[in-house]
């Protein structure tokens, strides 16, 4: 086994077509549990809220079984950990049940975004809009406690993904990298570094990508997301509609070899753009991810992290 991060995809309904074309290039699959069930909501009878989406689960299981067999990580969107309201315990239990059904996951990630509020929230149907988080002591304590509950339920390493925002919160006590570094330092979770989110923030007037990365503890980074977006009404959107932009690749080749605990590099695309992007471009994306992964090879710490990834399934 080589000590380098695995090359992976975020699973969607077109993944099986891509695997049929270029399956040998895909070593890891992440999947969102919210796409593997139908959530009938809090108004559903107790114990009858989550109904499994059997076809989607079967497709995912086929992708994981291969050949080749692939490592698996869960990537949730629905728990809204920064929300100032109790954790959705029913959903946590559903996440745990789903990961067990899939044979366990090497790690589980959530977003460092706000989606739910006491009287509403923002829809999380597609990538692109989570509300920004106030990085202070109150949010830290809130998120740390929820991470503990989630970790107890799913029984694996947790990661939090940096967000993309159109409207940053001013006058914060901590920057986002400082917040993530502290979560890592205190043992609550590692970091899922979404490099395209950094580009979205930079292009929309936020922190420059290089400044963000310079502040981040790269030893916390265990997974990296690549993706592409597009311009809409003067803003750059995290639409997952294109291959990874060149400026993100440049950053990736600079930064990832310094991420000693990196376990996977995962490409995200939205299935409605599958035809537009095309199999040839997706294959080129995966091939270039392998070059990137090879550039990260040969580190003792990663050897250990990678062995954990393989052991989890």
């Amino acid at each position: 086994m080589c000590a380098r991060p695995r090359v992976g995809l975020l699973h969607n309904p077109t993944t099986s077509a891509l695997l049929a074309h270029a399956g040998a290039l895909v070593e890891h699959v992440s999947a969102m549990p919210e796409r593997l069930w139908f959530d009938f909501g809090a108004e559903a009878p107790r114990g009858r809220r989550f109904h499994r989406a059997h076809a989607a689960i079967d497709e995912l299981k086929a992708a994981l079984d291969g050949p080749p067999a692939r490592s698996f990580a869960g990537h949730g969107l629905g728990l809204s950990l920064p929300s100032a309201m109790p954790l959705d315990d029913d959903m946590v239990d559903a996440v745990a049940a789903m990961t067990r059904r899939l044979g366990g996951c090497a790690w589980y990630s959530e977003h460092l975004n706000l989606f739910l509020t006491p009287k509403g929230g923002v829809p999380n149907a597609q990538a692109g809009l989570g509300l920004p988080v106030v990085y202070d002591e109150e949010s830290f304590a809130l998120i740390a406690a929820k991470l503990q509950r989630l970790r107890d339920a799913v029984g694996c390493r947790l990661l939090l993904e940096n967000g993309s925002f159109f409207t940053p919160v001013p006058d914060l006590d901590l920057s986002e990298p400082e917040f993530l570094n502290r979560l890592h330092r205190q043992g609550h979770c590692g970091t899922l570094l979404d490099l395209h989110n950094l580009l979205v923030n930079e292009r929309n007037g936020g922190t420059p990508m290089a400044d963000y990365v310079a502040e981040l503890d790269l030893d916390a980074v265990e997974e990296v997301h690549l993706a592409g977006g597009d311009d809409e009404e003067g803003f750059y959107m995290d639409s997952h509609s294109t291959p990874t932009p060149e400026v993100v690749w440049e950053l990736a080749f600079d930064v990832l070899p310094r991420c000693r605990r990196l376990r996977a590099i995962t490409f995200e695309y939205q299935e409605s753009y599958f035809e537009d992007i095309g199999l040839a471009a997706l294959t080129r994306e995966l091939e270039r991810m392998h070059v990137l992964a090879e550039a990260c090879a040969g580190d003792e710490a990663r050897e250990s992290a990678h062995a954990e990834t393989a052991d989890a399934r």
Partner: protein
Amino acid sequence: MLADFQQALSDITASPALCRALRADSELLGKRYRLTERETARLRAIAGHPGMTAACTVYRMNRLAPLAMNLRGTLRALGPALRRTIDAYWVDHPRGHAHFYIESCRFADWLAQAIAAGLSVPATVAGELARETAFVRGALVASRTEG
């Protein structure tokens, strides 16, 4: 308090009108939410940030997503009436449902009732709505996979 700050942030993202009202009336936040001075200052800055336009746009796109997926023909038939129809629906149902078929059925039922009550829409809407409602209702029943 944090819960009210988050609620206010969500509300202004969901409502460009509220966002505009907040810019015009510096006392509005204090009338609607329990906030510290620092939270109030943060929300005022966010409401005035150029990115608020994009945040509101993406909110609408995401809220519309289940209807665009399941009731595409109905939305297309609504044509120029789509915007005011959707705005009226969101006033009655400010929170979307996570289950796309439930959200789509809820909108379909609301629209059928609104048309029966006299809502003016293009003549082709009723036919598209009936056809697509039948499909979505079937899909919703099929999604009850746990007995």
